[in-house]
């Protein structure tokens, strides 16, 4: 299975990086950086800030590779988490309000991603389960996760208090978890 082999490759590279092997860091960068930059750029929407953050992300990967435990999760999930955390932290530090434009089509893009990335079964389950979450909750989840929208930005978009957004987010998460666990 392609994704299993790819995960194995990434896990071995992370292990080598933990041993201080910079060539392995380069190989990991070649494999993962374009995907991670895409993710970070979608959140930050500024190429310079995104490339800066990508640098921080790989320095962090270099520092923390020793803490990666392949039994605890897939390597790509670990890498994505570091990248997203870097992007979100940077976004929240920048006080200036940003223009939030909705990019449509997240849900549609999920099933027809044909380049062998990730785990097919999980992806299909997530697409199915997101589809079962009520509309405003689902949009909040997707805009927050994919584009880094804050509670306040979501509240402005939906014309409701931030506390309502919080409630939507938490209810949306509960629905999603319930569906994924039943799947």
């Amino acid at each position, binding site marked *: 299975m392609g994704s299993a082999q790819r995960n194995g490759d990434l896990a071995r590279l992370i292990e080598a990086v933990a041993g201080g092997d910079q060539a392995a860091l380069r190989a990991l960068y070649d494999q993962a950086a374009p995907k991670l930059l895409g993710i970070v750029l979608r959140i930050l929407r500024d190429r310079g800030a995104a490339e800066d953050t990508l640098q921080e992300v790989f320095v962090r990967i270099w520092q923390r590779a020793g803490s990666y435990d392949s039994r*605890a999760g897939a390597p790509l*999930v670990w890498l994505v988490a570091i990248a997203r955390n870097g992007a979100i932290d940077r976004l929240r530090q920048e006080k200036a309000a940003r223009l939030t434009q909705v990019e449509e089509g997240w849900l549609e893009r999920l099933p027809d991603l044909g380049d062998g990335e990730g785990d097919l079964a999980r992806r299909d389950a997530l697409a199915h389960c997101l589809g079962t979450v009520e509309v405003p909750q689902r949009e909040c989840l997707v805009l927050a996760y994919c584009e880094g929208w804050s509670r306040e930005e979501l509240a402005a978009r939906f014309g409701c208090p931030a506390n309502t957004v919080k409630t939507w987010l938490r209810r949306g998460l509960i629905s999603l978890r319930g569906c994924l666990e039943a799947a």
Partner: protein
Amino acid sequence: MSTPHSWPDDPDGTAGEYVLGTLPPEERAAFARALDGDAGLRALVANWEARLAPLAVATPSVAPSPATWAGIAARTGGTPGAVAGGAQIIRLERAARRWRVAAMGAGALAAGLALWIAAGPRPAGEGAQYLAVVDRGGALPALIVRVDLGSGLVQVRSLAAETPPDRSLELWYVGAGAAPRSLGLVTDASARLPVPAALRQGAEGASLAVSVEPKGGSPTGSPTGPVIYSGKLVRD
């Protein structure tokens, strides 16, 4: 400003919002700190990361510019000589951490070191202790230095530090923004040297370095030869 945090009431929802990125900044920072000491919360976060990751992976890839890798290489020790001061410290901290990991694993040398650290003399004094792994950039430390402010001693353990013929290795203490101060010569066996006054006032953020000097030590009181090892003090 002490708004109550929601995670005791709703740990899974808070973990989910942490992963989404929607916790208010103050709560996000507090939650991130709580994660360090709470394996249960970390597991909740890991579950959400795994559940949602396919959505992130669906994002189209973007090729980074070549300068981005160059920056990473410079900050992870890939281009010797081109390393900025801040990056050097990161690398040295990493070296120390890697050694600690190594000491927990197999390997006679590493195991011996771990034992020495665990069973090494611990003076009765309550003063702060610092441990420095003085590293050459490789996987194994060349020197281990323990600074004990309680007993007023610096303890040096030399690990195959190769002394060039007709030269001496000299250990220096470098305080933040201060001139290097000699701690004495590094001998092959473990050596104990008195802690200088500057160091007693608290060694946080200081580093240690070893330079190659003429036999018997630097004639000037400052390092004259190349610095072959350097390491940052970390609290033991």
